[in-house]
C-alpha cells in the first residue's frame, strides 16, 4: 500500500522511483502490443446470415 504521491516525502519518492525504474528496465522489450493478430485461437466467428435473407438454391441436376 502506498500513500498519495503528493504526500510522499522526498525519501519515499526516491524509493518509489527506484522501484519504478527497476520495473522499466525491460521496457525496451515491449513493442507496444502483445498477442498474435493472426492467431488461430482468435479466428473470427463465421459470418451469419438469417434464413429469411438467403436466396433460394438453384436447382441442379
Amino acid at each position, binding site marked *: *500500500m*502506498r*500513500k*498519495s*504521491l503528493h504526500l510522499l516525502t522526498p525519501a519515499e*519518492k526516491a524509493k*518509489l*522511483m527506484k*522501484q*519504478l*525504474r527497476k*520495473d*522499466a528496465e*525491460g*521496457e525496451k*522489450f*515491449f*513493442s*507496444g*502490443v*502483445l*498477442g*498474435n*493478430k493472426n*492467431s488461430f*485461437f*482468435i479466428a*473470427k*466467428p463465421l459470418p451469419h446470415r438469417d434464413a429469411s435473407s438467403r436466396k433460394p438454391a438453384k436447382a441442379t441436376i
Partner: protein
Amino acid sequence: MPKAKSVIPITFAVIHDDEPADVTVSLAGNADVTSSTRWRVPTLDDEAMRSRAADAREYALLAAKRWRHYRDTNCAAHSLDELRQMIAHNPKGEFCFHLKVTADWFPASLGGAMVRRTWCHHLMIDFLFAHPQVCSRVVNVKTIGLNLLRAICLVGDALGCKRVWGEATQDSAPFYSYYLGRTVEDMFVMERTAIRVFARALDSMRRTS
C-alpha cells in the same frame, strides 16, 4: 473456487516524463472498448515508431471486434463481480473481459487488454496494447505492458485461476522472457506461483484510497 476479492480497480504509479504518476487499471465497459476504436496513429517521421503505433491501433480494433462478439452472446463481463457470477452460473463457460489503463492526466485510455477466461478456468491473453501515442513514445509513459500483465495475474489470482497463457510472437517473446526469467518461444505459460508473484508485485504498489 476461492472468493474473488475487490482487487480491481487498482491505482498505482508508473513513470511519466521521469516522474511518478498514478494510473488506474479497471475492467472496461462497452463505451471504453468503443472509444479505443477511435484512436489515431500520430503523424511521425520515425517509420519504426509509426509502425508500432499502427500495430497498437490495429490490436485495439481487433480486440473491440472480439469484444462485440462476446458482448452480443452475453459472455462479456463488465466487472469482476459480474465475471464471478457468470462463472458461478456456468463453470465451464468461456467468458471475456477487457482491461483498461486510465489516468486523469491523459484524455484516452493508456492501454488495454482483451482476456478470455477459458472453459477450464485459465486466463488467455488475446490482445494487449498500449495507446498509439504511448507505444510510439509521443507520450513518455513506461511499464504499461508489464502492469497490464500484472493486472491480468491479479484478476487470475483473485479468481483462483491456475494458469495464464498466450501466444508469443517474434516481437513479444523477448518481453515475456525478460519478465518471466526464462526462455519463451511461441507460447508463454504462467502457473499459479508466477501468477501470484506478478499479482503481488502490483498489489504491493496499490495506492491507498
